[in-house]
C-alpha cells in the first residue's frame, strides 16, 4: 500500500557575497622557519618600564588566554583592566577542558620535536593554517609546561617524580601532559592564581559581572569598549590604549554544544560589525566522544575526554539494529570500524575523522541506544589489561561523570557516545602579532581563527590559549603600544557616544518587543538549523535552505521575542537575548562561509566533494586560503578577503590516517 507523501516545499535563497582584495600582509616574517619567531621578537618595538605604567590595556575574558595574558601584562607593568561576565574569573569555560596539553618536550624519548608537533598540527588542520604561526605555537609549547609546573600545577607524574604523558588523537607520539581528567581546570586555576597575584599587587583590576556589548573604534583604532554591569544594568564606557578579546568560541550558536551555557560570540561579533574580519567562520569542531542527547529539555551536551580513546575501543554491532545488550554481543559480532578503516591510528584518529565515521555508521543503521544515534566506547579490554586501579587513576572522574548523567556504569557496560559541537577553529582574523585588521584590537585563544586550520587536534586548545596569553601577546602588543604612549584617553568622543547609544537602542528594542516566544525557543531553532545543515556534513542545497531559514528566524526574533524585566536590573534573559541576537547574525555568516568553500577539508565536509570512501576531498588549487569576511552592513552580502596560504616547508598531502 503506497502512501502519498508530500514533502514540505523547500525554501532556499541564493547565497551571495562580494569579493574584496586579498590580504597580502599578515606580518609573518620570512626566512628559516625555526628562526622566524626569534627574529620577529627581536624586531619588535619595546616600551620602557616607566612608560608601561602609562599604558592601559583592556582584556575581555579570563579563560586560559585572557587570564594568562592579563597576568603577564600585569607582570610587565601595564595597567590592565579585565572584564568578565562571570561572578569570578575562575569560571571561564577553559576550566572544563579535560584531556591534556601538548608540548614538544620529548621527555618520552619517542622522537618528538618542535618540527613534529608543528607538522602534526598543520596536517591535523588539513593544511588550512599558516606555517609561521603553527611553528611558533610548537616552539613555545615547551615553555608553557615549564611555566605551569613552576606555578605549582599538579600534572600527573611517574613514580620517579618526573612528568607523565599520554597519547592523543592525530599523533603517534606521547606528548600530552595531563592532570587526571581535569587538565583545563588545573591550568586555568594556575592562570587565575597568577592573575589574582597581579590584582593583589595592584597591576590588574578585574571587573566581575560585566558584559562587553560593543567595541569602540576611532580612526581605525580600537579605543575601548561599552560594558553593561550585569547587576545594576548600568552601561559604561571604558577607554584604553589597546583592547584584547579573549572571549572564546561561538559553538553555542548550535544551542546544544559542549560549551558552557553563557559562552557567546557577542564581543567578537560586535568587533566584526565594527570592521574586524571574521576568519573561516564555518570551521567548527564536532567532538566525537560526547554523551548522546536524551531529550528536548536538554540544555547542553557533555564531553567525554578524547583521552578515553587511548584505552577505549569504539565499536558497533555488525548487524544493523542488533538490540542485544552490549555484553551479550560476542567479539565476532562487534565491528571495530575505526580500527578497521584506519589501522595505523586506530581509535586515535583526529576528531573530525572519528566524528564523521560515527555519523557514517549511524547513517548506515548500525547506531546503538534508544535513538540509534550513538556508538559504543568500550573499556573492557583495557580494564582486563591494566586493572581497575590504573584505569581509575587515568579516567576516574570521567567514569563517575558518565555514570551520574546516564545512570549506567562504564565499568560494567560500554559508554554510549555521539559527536557534538565542541570548538570553533574559526574566529576573528588576526595577523602574526595576533592583531585583527583593526589597529590595537587583538584576539587570542579560541576567539581568533589562527592556528588550527580546519581541524584542531586534541590537547592543542590549551596549548594555543596559553601560548597566546603567556608567550606571544605580551611581546607583540608592546610593538603597538609603543606607538600609543602619547595618546590621551577619553571616553568623551563621538565614537563612544555612538556605540553607547546603539547599545542602549538594542537593549530597548529587545525589551519593548514583548512578543510571545522565549529567547531559548529561538536559540533552539537556530541550533537545529545549523546542526542539520552546517554541522557534520554540509551541501549547497542544505546551506541555501539554512540561509533562508536563519534570515526568517532572525526577522521573527525581532518581532516576536519576549524578554521579561527591565534593563536597570540583574536580568539574565536580557543577557541571553543579546547573545542570541548576535548568534542569529553569525549563524548566517557561518552558512555563507560553508557554502562558498567548495571543497572538503578537516571539519568541513561538503558532501559534493568527497572520495568514494567518504573522506574529505581537498582542493588546494582554489581554496588554499583563509576566508576573512568583512561586515558590509545589515542585510548586505559580506565581503570576502582571501589570505593565501603559502606552504614553503610542508607539502600539503592527502591527509591519511590509514
Amino acid at each position: 500500500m503506497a502512501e502519498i507523501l508530500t514533502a514540505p516545499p523547500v525554501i532556499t535563497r541564493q547565497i551571495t557575497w562580494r569579493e574584496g582584495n586579498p590580504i597580502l600582509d599578515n606580518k609573518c616574517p620570512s626566512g628559516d622557519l625555526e628562526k622566524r619567531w626569534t627574529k620577529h621578537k627581536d624586531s619588535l618595538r619595546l616600551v620602557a618600564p616607566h612608560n608601561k605604567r602609562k599604558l592601559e590595556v583592556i582584556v575581555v575574558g579570563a579563560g586560559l588566554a585572557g587570564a594568562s595574558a592579563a597576568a603577564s601584562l600585569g607582570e610587565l607593568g601595564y595597567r590592565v583592566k579585565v572584564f568578565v561576565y562571570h561572578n569570578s574569573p575562575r569560571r571561564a569555560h577553559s576550566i572544563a577542558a579535560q584531556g591534556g596539553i601538548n608540548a614538544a618536550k620529548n621527555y618520552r624519548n619517542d622522537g618528538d620535536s618542535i618540527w613534529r608537533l608543528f607538522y602534526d598540527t598543520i596536517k591535523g588542520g588539513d593544511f588550512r593554517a599558516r606555517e609561521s604561526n603553527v611553528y611558533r605555537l610548537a616552539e613555545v609549547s615547551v615553555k608553557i609546561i615549564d611555566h605551569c609546573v613552576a606555578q605549582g600545577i599538579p600534572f600527573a607524574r611517574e613514580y620517579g617524580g618526573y612528568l607523565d604523558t599520554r597519547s592523543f588523537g592525530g599523533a603517534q607520539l606521547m606528548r600530552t601532559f595531563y592532570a587526571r581528567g581535569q587538565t583545563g581546570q588545573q591550568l586555568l586555576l594556575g592562570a587565575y592564581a597568577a592573575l589574582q597575584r597581579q590584582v593583589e599587587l595592584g597591576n590588574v583590576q578585574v571587573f566581575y559581572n560585566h558584559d562587553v556589548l560593543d567595541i569602540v573604534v576611532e580612526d581605525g583604532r580600537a579605543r575601548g569598549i561599552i560594558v553593561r554591569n550585569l547587576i545594576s544594568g548600568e552601561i559604561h564606557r571604558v577607554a584604553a590604549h589597546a583592547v584584547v578579546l579573549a572571549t572564546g568560541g561561538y559553538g553555542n550558536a548550535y544551542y546544544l554544544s559542549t560549551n558552557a551555557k553563557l559562552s557567546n560570540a557577542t564581543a567578537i561579533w560586535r568587533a566584526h560589525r565594527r570592521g574586524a574580519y571574521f576568519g573561516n567562520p564555518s570551521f567548527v569542531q564536532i567532538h566525537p566522544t560526547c554523551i548522546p542527547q536524551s531529550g528536548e529539555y536538554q540544555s547542553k551536551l557533555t564531553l567525554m575526554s578524547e583521552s578515553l580513546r587511548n584505552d577505549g575501543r569504539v565499536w558497533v554491532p555488525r548487524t544493523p539494529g542488533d538490540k542485544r545488550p552490549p555484553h551479550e554481543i560476542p567479539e565476532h559480532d562487534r565491528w571495530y570500524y575505526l580500527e578497521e578503516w584506519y589501522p595505523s591510528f586506530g581509535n586515535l584518529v583526529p576528531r573530525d575523522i572519528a566524528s564523521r565515521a560515527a555519523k557514517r555508521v549511524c547513517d548506515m543503521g548500525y547506531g546503538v541506544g534508544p535513538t540509534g544515534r550513538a556508538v559504543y566506547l568500550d573499556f573492557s579490554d583495557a580494564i582486563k589489561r591494566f586493572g581497575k586501579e590504573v584505569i581509575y587513576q587515568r579516567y576516574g572522574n570521567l567514569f563517575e561523570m558518565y555514570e551520574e548523567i546516564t545512570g549506567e556504569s562504564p565499568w560494567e557496560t560500554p559508554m554510549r557516545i555521539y559527536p557534538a559541537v565542541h570548538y570553533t577553529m574559526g574566529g576573528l582574523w588576526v595577523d602574526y602579532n595576533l592583531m585583527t585588521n583593526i589597529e590595537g584590537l587583538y584576539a587570542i585563544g579560541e576567539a581568533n581563527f589562527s592556528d588550527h586550520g580546519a581541524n584542531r587536534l586534541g590537547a592543542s586548545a590549551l596549548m594555543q590559549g596559553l601560548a597566546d596569553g603567556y608567550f606571544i601577546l605580551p611581546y607583540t602588543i608592546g610593538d603597538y603600544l609603543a606607538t600609543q604612549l602619547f595618546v590621551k584617553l577619553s571616553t568623551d568622543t563621538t565614537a563612544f557616544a555612538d556605540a553607547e547609544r546603539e547599545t542602549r537602542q538594542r537593549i530597548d528594542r529587545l525589551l519593548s518587543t514583548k512578543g510571545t516566544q522565549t529567547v531559548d525557543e529561538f536559540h533552539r531553532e537556530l541550533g537545529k538549523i545549523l546542526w542539520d545543515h552546517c554541522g557534520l556534513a554540509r551541501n549547497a542545497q542544505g546551506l541555501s535552505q539554512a540561509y533562508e531559514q536563519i534570515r526568517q528566524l532572525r526577522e521573527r526574533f525581532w518581532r516576536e521575542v519576549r524578554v521579561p524585566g527591565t534593563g536597570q536590573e540583574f536580568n539574565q534573559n536580557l543577557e541571553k537575548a543579546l547573545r542570541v541576537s548576535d548568534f542569529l547574525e553569525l549563524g548566517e555568516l557561518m552558512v555563507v562561509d560553508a557554502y562558498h568553500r567548495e571543497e572538503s577539508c578537516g571539519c568541513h565536509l561538503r558532501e559534493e566533494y568527497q572520495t568514494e570512501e567518504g573522506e574529505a576531498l581537498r582542493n588546494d588549487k582554489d581554496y588554499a586560503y583563509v576566508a576573512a569576511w568583512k561586515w558590509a552592513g545589515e542585510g548586505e552580502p559580506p565581503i570576502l578577503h582571501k589570505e593565501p596560504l603559502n606552504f614553503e616547508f610542508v607539502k600539503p598531502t592527502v591527509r591519511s590516517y590509514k
Partner: protein
Amino acid sequence: MRFTLRIWRQKNSQDEGRFEVYEVDGVPPNASFLEMLDILNEKLIKEGKEPVAFDHDCREGICGSCGLFINGRAHGPLPNITTCRLYMRHFKDGDTITIEPFRAKPFPVIKDLVVDRSALDRIIQKGGYISVNTGSAPDANSIPIPKPAADRAFDYATCIGCGACVAACKNASAMLFTAAKVAHLAMLPQGQPERRQRVKRMVAQMDLEGFGHCSNTGACAVECPAKIPLKAIAQLQRDYIWANLTPDPHAP
C-alpha cells in the same frame, strides 16, 4: 514528573525577600535540577511572570557557578555533587522542594538565588599562588616531585570554588576552601618559599571577610563536589601553628 517548588525570591540586595510557591509539571526524570528550573522559567516567561534568577554556566560540575541550597542541603540531597549534576530522578514525583540561596554574611544575595562569592577570590589574592613571573621557569623536569605528593596536591587543587563548604557549615566558615589551596601548595617544593606567609595572610583575609570559625563538624567535606578531604583542614591548622610558633629561619 510534577513538583511543588518553594523558591526564595529577592529583587535585589536591598529587598527583604520571601518564599514563593510554584508548580512545575512534565519534568523528565533525566533532566538536571537546573534544566527543571529552565522548564519553570520558560513557563513563567510565557505567563508574563518574572523568571527565577540562578547562577549556572558549564553545567558539567566544574565551573563552580551553580549553587543552590535545596531541601536544607548545599547542592541538594546527594553528597559531593554540584547542583547541575543533580538529576530529577533522585526526587519523588509530587515532592515539594525548597530552594534557597547559599547563605553567609560574605555572600550577599544579588537576586533570587544568585549570591556574590567574590570574597573567595579575595582570599586567593592574599597568597593562593606561587609568585613566579612568566618566562622565569626552569625546565619542568628539573623539579621532580614524588608521585604521592603530586597526587595529593592534585586532590586538594580540584576545588571548584562553588562555596558549598561555606553554605553547609553551621558557622559559615570558609576553612575547607582556604585549606584546599594552602594544602595544595604545601605539598609541592615550589610552594615552600611562601608557605608561612601564605597561610597567615589567607587566614587573616578569611576572618576579615566575615566567614565564621571552623568547628570540625565535617559538613563541608560531605557536600564538597570536589571531594576535598578534611585532612586539608588539618594541614592548614598544622601550617598555621607552625608558621606562628616557630621562628622563621629566613627572617632578618
